[in-house]
């Protein structure tokens, strides 16, 4: 609908016949869409009423009455379906965030390794990409799940590691940290160390811009962030103990447990998506002109620094848009949780809750809205990041 009046700011809108016709058509289109939506809703309401199917969102206040095996937030059977929704949402977000995180780390590592001058490393990375990308995701998740529950021993024959780590077919059990006196000072020290590291980095960058002399800010920051809280922790007499889980009856009581369903789902999502991300990273790096690396080399930069300072920053502009769509895929694919019995949003809300209440339209609408919102927010964040990467004219 671009015409001259749009592109000439300040000029008044003229009531030409073409403009009137365009406005009328647009109004008619909006009206038709609204009418269609209204007619769909009215039809659905009428049909539900005819069949005596309850409708509305009142069910969210009813008691759920069933238990969920893994919940990030407190939940028991006397909580409401609304709470079940939050439990499922939290689990979906947890799996998605961890999946994205691991997929990114593994994907970048494999993508870079694939371009490595080492023949073995490059071939290994290539094999990884081919295997993970060409096998269905559901198959991979089930593979990890059946591997875990099939190969690992039962609770009574658990593999026990250091620090009270326990591994069996009920999951990986970590000891429960118990806070002692003075732990808050360790946290304060950690906070102070982070601030100090930020100050050092800023100063180092400013000095490099001013004088051209580098400073190992990364290493110093890492030393500060790890060292300072550790020193305080040791000075205060280690105010944090680990309470290992103990075997009682069928299973270990206490500790933090990562159930196999969760581990298999995150592993499957991360390893599968990493294969795609590796290809995106490889393509991004190869999109950067060879001359850039050669120029960097001629300045005396070592290959690692060249990759870090010259190639990757330019490659990111090519990498980010397809990376965004991979992140969205992780979120959507996390709904395969049902196959391994992990209680994500689709399993506990669009599954169990739907079946107990029968309110398909409301529940599916809410579930769709959640996935849409997560996807739009992810895309928004990645687009903002991409805009920051855009070349800045100096």
């Amino acid at each position: 609908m671009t015409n001259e009046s749009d592109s000439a700011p300040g000029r008044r809108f003229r009531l030409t016949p073409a403009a009137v016709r365009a406005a009328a058509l647009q109004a008619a289109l909006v009206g038709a869409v609204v009418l269609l939506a209204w007619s769909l809703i009215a039809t659905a309401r009428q049909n539900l009423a005819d069949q005596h199917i309850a409708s509305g969102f009142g069910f969210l206040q009813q008691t759920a009455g069933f238990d969920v095996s893994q919940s990030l937030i407190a939940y028991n059977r006397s909580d409401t379906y609304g709470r079940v929704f939050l439990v499922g949402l939290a689990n979906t977000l947890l799996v998605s965030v961890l999946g994205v995180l691991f997929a990114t780390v593994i994907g970048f590592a494999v993508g870079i390794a694939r371009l490595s001058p080492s023949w073995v490393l490059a071939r290994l990375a290539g094999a990884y990409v081919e295997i993970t990308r060409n096998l269905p995701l559901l198959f991979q998740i089930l593979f990890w799940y059946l591997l875990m529950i099939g190969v690992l021993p039962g609770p009574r024959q658990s593999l026990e590691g250091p620090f009270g780590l326990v591994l069996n077919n009920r999951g990986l059990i970590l000891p429960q940290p118990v806070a002692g006196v003075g732990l808050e000072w360790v946290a304060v020290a950690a906070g102070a160390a982070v601030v100090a590291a930020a100050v050092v980095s800023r100063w180092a960058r400013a000095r490099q811009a001013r004088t051209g002399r580098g400073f190992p800010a990364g290493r110093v920051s890492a030393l500060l962030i790890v060292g300072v809280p550790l020193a305080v922790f040791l000075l205060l007499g280690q105010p944090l103990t680990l309470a290992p889980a103990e075997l009682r009856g069928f299973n270990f009581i206490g500790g933090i447990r990562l159930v196999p369903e969760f581990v298999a789902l995150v592993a499957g999502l991360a390893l599968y998506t990493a294969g795609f991300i590796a290809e995106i990273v490889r393509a991004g790096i190869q999109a950067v002109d060879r001359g850039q690396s050669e120029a960097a080399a001629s300045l005396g930069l070592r290959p690692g620094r060249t990759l870090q300072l010259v190639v990757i920053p330019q490659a990111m502009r090519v990498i980010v848009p397809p990376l965004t769509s991979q992140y969205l895929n992780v979120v959507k694919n996390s709904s395969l949780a049902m196959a391994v019995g992990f209680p994500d949003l689709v399993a506990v809300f669009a599954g169990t809750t739907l079946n107990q209440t029968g309110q398909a339209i409301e529940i599916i609408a809410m579930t769709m809205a959640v996935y849409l919102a997560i996807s739009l927010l992810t895309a928004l964040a990645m687009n903002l990041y991409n805009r920051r990467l855009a070349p800045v004219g100096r």
Partner: protein
Amino acid sequence: MHRLALVLALGIACCGAASSASAQATLKTVQARGHVLCGVSQGLPGFSAPNDKGQWSGLDVDFCRALAAAIFNDPAKVTFVPLSAKDRFTALQSGDIEVLARNSTWTLSRDTALGLDFPAITFYDGQGFMVRKSLKVSSALELTGASICTQTGTTTELNAADYFHAHNMTYEMVAFATNDEAIKTYDTGENGRCDAFTTDIAGLSAERLKLANPDDHVVLPEVISKEPLGPAVRHGDAQWADIVRWTHFAMITAEELGVSAATVDTMLKSPNPEVRRLLGTEGNAGEQLGLTKDWVVRIVKRVGNYGEVFERNVGKDSPLGIARGQNALWTKGGLQYAPPIR
């Protein structure tokens, strides 16, 4: 743009027309189509499972065949739609099937808020637990802290939650989309992911047959719930609900009166007025339902009476070997009781 507006207008017109179609007259729809759409499980031996020739068989399947026999005089005029526990009611509500014979429990909320009707109880069951013999557990009350595998979206999850909370026991429910995934997970590994598997007792007997070594597992004695299983139909078509209800009652009455697939032809000459009313040689019970007078003859000749169907699919003539128990006729101490056909 003109074309788009036209398409939208057409869309609205067609939706408006579709919404005015009535929910009544399921029988007419079925007769016009020529076969019944029957929702069944995705494979529960004894109730509904495809055999090695790809034909469905089982107690629930035979109920649908009996319906088809009553309506068409041909038990083959059924299309079976395999449904997961979580999809079954939506499929019925939305009209994908006309009757759901899928070992579904009759509960108040399903009867009211889901817009369904449960016309009959074809199998009285209760929920139980199966464990490995090697665990040396003899009672469900010893299951504190156990991991339990089940299928999601059933009353099973609710009953287990009630039972464990009532007895102040902790447990971990690992719920899967389908029974197959749940039983496979229970059976994987030497000392599997789950200590116990839970579903209705008859279901336990059926699922046990799928295990690698069925003899290594035992069903615990506790029955923690009432599970009246039967066909479900959409609320709002009383005639169709009546046909489904009286198909079951006719099969029970046939067993009670000794009318079986073998004897039905000779029974047609019976002087017993009850038998005569059942078989349509007297009165017009079938026509009152919208069927033909000989509807019960069709059912019993093609499919059998309730006792025959029971023994063939889940009873002593089947691998499940479930005793009649609560499902015996009321005259033999059971709960299967049919109102008079007159």
